[in-house]
């Protein structure tokens, strides 16, 4: 069991070295002499926990003396992978270009928040310049 825990933890540590760098570039697609390669930003996240042994501190001495192999244990783990499109590489006989992909939804939300922030500050400024409202 100890060796299994050690193997799991070692695998976890090695994962950052084995993450596939080529995952950020998609499959090239050629249409009418133009080849397009999608590019994305990829993030992997992972976590795990495992435990084995007596359930309480008051475990009896006889139980404590039992072989470790007879005890019960459990574990859980999980991971998440996210990919956000970043750009498209276009290859033509004339040359190679990188065309950025802009997340318009995210920018629209940020612009809305910025607009509200500016309106609040502008109103506050006008009140401070032209006098307090009664």
């Amino acid at each position, binding site marked *: 069991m100890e060796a299994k825990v050690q193997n799991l933890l070692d695998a976890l540590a090695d994962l950052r070295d084995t993450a596939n760098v080529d995952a950020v570039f998609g499959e090239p697609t050629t249409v009418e002499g133009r080849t397009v390669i999608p590019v994305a930003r990829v993030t992997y*996240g992972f976590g795990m926990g495992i435990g084995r042994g007596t359930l309480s501190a008051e475990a009896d001495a006889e139980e404590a003396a039992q072989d470790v192999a007879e005890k019960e244990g459990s574990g859980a783990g999980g991971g998440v992978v996210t990919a956000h499109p970043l750009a498209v590489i276009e290859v033509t006989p004339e040359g190679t270009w990188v065309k*950025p992909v802009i997340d318009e939804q995210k920018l629209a939300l940020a612009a809305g928040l910025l607009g509200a922030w500016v309106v609040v500050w502008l109103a506050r400024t006008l009140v401070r310049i032209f006098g307090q409202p009664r």
Partner: protein
Amino acid sequence: MDKKEGRLRGPMASHLVEGQPIRVGGRELVPVVRVTARGQRRAHVGTNELTGQGWGFVRLRPVAILERSASGERHIPIQDRTVQALGGFLLAAFVIPLLLGVAVRLARGR
């Protein structure tokens, strides 16, 4: 009671890695990716218990592509325009109140 406890926290590591070349129309495109990783693992071994936990993340961000052809090698940067624009918005959110504060001082000083 025999007890052993181990903890290993890796520092935030970031380095540039070249991926597998992609061959397109007589050209070789080599992706350059910044790999940022962080991880931590912890184990506790006692007479009656054995526990282990670990977590980590790896972020792969493409930064450029190297175009190798008969005419030579060209470095083409890949920029995240969305993040740049959001950075601009954040900067504006700090600068606009400062400018308005200056405007108030100037108006009151008249």
